């Protein structure tokens, strides 16, 4: 049930070359993709294919060598804290702050007062109520990542960029997190770009799966996922789901070196 709205976020011929000591690294090459308003797009590719580079360019953290990232048709040239929320690999909580202070960190940076009712609602939805005073090291990996989702959603950004957020979690926790994420997304309908190297995860979450090639990162193919929503873990056992995994896996393998996970 893709909702083709206007292109919320689009990259146009995005190219990024890093100058390293061992010569230039072509991380991203002429990458063009449209992400529509309210759409959940997974960007799938092997490790080191420039997925993170793409996301950092989308967020305005790094400049592109050439090409453009457009948000609502306007080029992004720096961080857009009011429109874009970023969720990082690992939870990236600040270890010297407790959970509440971590969630209030973006408000502090922006100099606004925390939206306490919104935060309380998100804590409730993520099952973190009662842990506000806990330090990050006292929380499990899943709880830390849930806290980082609360931190991003508390800002109510229109676009959510997620960089392999559940990559470090075990398979069970990851399923749980994916379900929670879909639930939150169905309530808020943010535009989501979700980077992963896990095919099953990508299909389970996305409206569309964008497959990237490795070095340089190019657009390989875009797959429409027509699984009905709300999605359940049961669906991942269906032949149709498994067939889709195989299809994508074959396509990637045909394209050369691969490092994709199948679950």
């Amino acid at each position, binding site marked *: 049930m893709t909702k083709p709205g206007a292109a919320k976020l689009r990259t146009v011929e995005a190219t990024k070359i*890093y*100058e*390293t000591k061992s010569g230039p*690294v072509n*991380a991203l090459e002429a990458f063009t993709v449209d992400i529509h308003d309210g759409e959940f797009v997974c960007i799938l590719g092997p490790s080191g294919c420039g997925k*993170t*580079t793409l996301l*950092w360019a989308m*967020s*305005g*953290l*790094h*400049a592109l060598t050439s090409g453009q990232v457009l948000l609502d048709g306007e080029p992004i*040239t*720096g*961080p*857009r*804290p*009011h429109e*874009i*929320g*970023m969720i*990082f*690999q*690992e939870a*990236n909580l*600040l*270890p*010297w702050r407790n959970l509440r202070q971590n969630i209030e*960190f*973006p408000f*502090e*940076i*922006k100099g606004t007062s925390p939206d306490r009712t919104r935060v309380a609602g998100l804590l409730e939805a993520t099952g973190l109520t009662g842990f506000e005073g806990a*330090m*990050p*090291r006292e929380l499990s990996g899943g709880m830390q990542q849930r806290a980082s989702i609360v931190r991003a959603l508390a*800002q109510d950004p229109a676009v959510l960029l997620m960089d392999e957020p559940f990559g470090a979690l075990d398979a069970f926790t990851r399923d749980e997190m994916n379900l929670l994420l879909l639930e939150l997304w169905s309530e808020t309908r943010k535009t989501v770009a979700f980077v992963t190297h896990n095919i099953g995860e990508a299909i389970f979450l996305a409206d569309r799966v964008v497959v990237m090639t490795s070095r340089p990162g190019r657009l390989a193919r875009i797959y429409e996922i027509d699984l009905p929503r709300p999605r359940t873990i049961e669906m991942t056992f269906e032949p149709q789901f498994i067939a889709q995994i195989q299809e994508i896996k074959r396509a990637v393998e045909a394209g050369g070196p691969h490092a994709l996970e199948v679950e």
Partner: protein
Amino acid sequence: MNQVPTELRDDIPSFEEKPDSQDRGPIDWTGLTSISTAKSALEIGTIIAVAVAVFFGVEAILRVTDTPTYVFPRPTDVVQTLVADFGSLYAPHLWVTMQEFLIGLAIGSTIGLVLAAVITQKPFVEKVVAPYIIAMVTTPMIALVPFLRLKLGFGLFPIVFAVALASGPMVLINAATGFRRTDLAKIALARSYGASTFQIFRKIRFPLALPMIIVGFMVGSIFGLLTAVGGEMVAASEKGGLGQRLVFFSSLVQMDKFGAVILIIAALGVAIYVLFYFIGKRWASWEA
């Protein structure tokens, strides 16, 4: 519209942690914050029993061997003069040493901390000042005291100056180690919310460096105390000080009073250690 931030090096984003050993200063902080404190009554009782045994053991050996008190003071004599003469013989000198130490530490550590923040941001400044810092860390500042005394007069200031010179570089090198820790992901996080360079310093770099800054203050304090006492032994002000008392009492062969001064200095050192232990527990426990 915002500029692309310069805080983040334009490298391939990598979140790999640096090897742990790089984060460690001259003193292993984890060792400091993980010292266990006595828990049960049995443990506490044993610790006290051993201390009492050592105290009276030394006393007994000195009495049995009939060691003259000018060779080794008896513990009971030391404690007796410490209690009886504290206000008259020791407190004024303790106050002099404390003033030299605290003022010197305040000046030295402030300069060291500010310089650490600057040199870690400006590699060129670091290259220019590094040789002097290394020279200051490796040269015993006590050696400068006679010179400072001649130049700066007979008040407290020459020793204050020496304490600042001894403690400042220690704070500097440790704080610089702390400020050099760059956690790309955390800086990116702050940047993604639009943080300014100053906000990144205050909310990310400084807290990240804080455990090393505390270590720097502890090492600096101990070097400062050493320099204050040693400086007084070499060339004390007209007001004296604990170091000057050490020289004075030993020249009069009043070893019980000498021992009392040693106890006071040792207590100061331990107090510094305990203070920073608790500061570390409060402000840097997230790291241990």
